């Protein structure tokens, strides 16, 4: 199945990046390489694996752009795909759960996540009726924890042993961070 989903796609520019809905045509060797890189997959507790191009294409096609969004991050200068967000919408409670992967390690430590996530927070809060954003990094994913804190999200709780390690079966702690729309608006007014 490689047909385009019917929901409303996203195309947003930030100072350095373009954020747009990924399509089956975006399946690439670059994206495949991220799945094979333990440094990329490890902090996410995701298995390292070789994902065929047709698997990635079908995966991209599985998002409906209404309840589930797969949004690519592209370096504007080179139009290079460097990562992606997965955003899941709970329409009943008007919440959006954010997940992000920066696959291109050249961009690590360069504020990609918070520059791009800020634009997506604006979009989902102001145009898609979302009232709360949620993020759930593993406690050992220190860069992700940093990004939530630096962006003004609140640590709302620690889920003890909430995930099973794909590497050794150990139980892993996970945080919940949250950001309410009103708090984001205040942060934006303050210059975030």
């Amino acid at each position, binding site marked *: 199945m490689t047909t385009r989903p019917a929901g409303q796609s996203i195309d947003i520019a930030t100072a350095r990046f373009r954020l747009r809905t990924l399509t089956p045509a975006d399946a690439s060797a670059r994206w495949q390489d991220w799945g094979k890189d333990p440094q990329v997959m490890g902090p996410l507790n995701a298995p390292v694996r070789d994902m065929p191009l047709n698997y990635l294409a079908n995966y991209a096609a599985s998002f409906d752009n209404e309840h589930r969004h797969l949004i690519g991050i592209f370096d504007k200068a080179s139009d290079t795909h460097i990562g992606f967000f997965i955003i899941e919408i709970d329409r009943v409670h008007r919440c959006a759960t954010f997940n992000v992967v920066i696959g291109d390690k050249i961009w*690590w430590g*360069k504020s990609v996540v918070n520059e791009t996530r800020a634009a997506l927070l604006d979009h989902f809060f102001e145009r898609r009726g979302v009232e709360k954003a949620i993020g759930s990094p593993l*406690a050992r994913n220190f860069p992700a924890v*940093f990004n939530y804190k630096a962006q003004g999200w609140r640590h709302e709780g620690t889920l003890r042993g909430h995930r099973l390690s794909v590497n050794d079966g150990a139980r892993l702690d996970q945080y919940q961070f949250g950001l309410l729309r009103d708090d984001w608006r205040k942060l934006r007014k303050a210059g975030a």
Partner: protein
Amino acid sequence: MSKSSAARQILAEAVNAGAETIPEDARIGTYERWDSLAHLRLLLTIEQKLGRALDADEVVRIESLADVAAILGEQS
């Protein structure tokens, strides 16, 4: 009173700057050199100094130079 020299030195190394340049009120989100990779280096160094892994409560508490000093058991 300045924060402990060990905390300041660890943060300075993590952000690749001189210890004397670290602001007294250095904090995530306001001190620009403190980015996500610096944070990773900082926490791994703290674990090395302590000789153990930080637990989840400790990890989420570290967001300032003062917090680094506190986790190292130093007076500010």
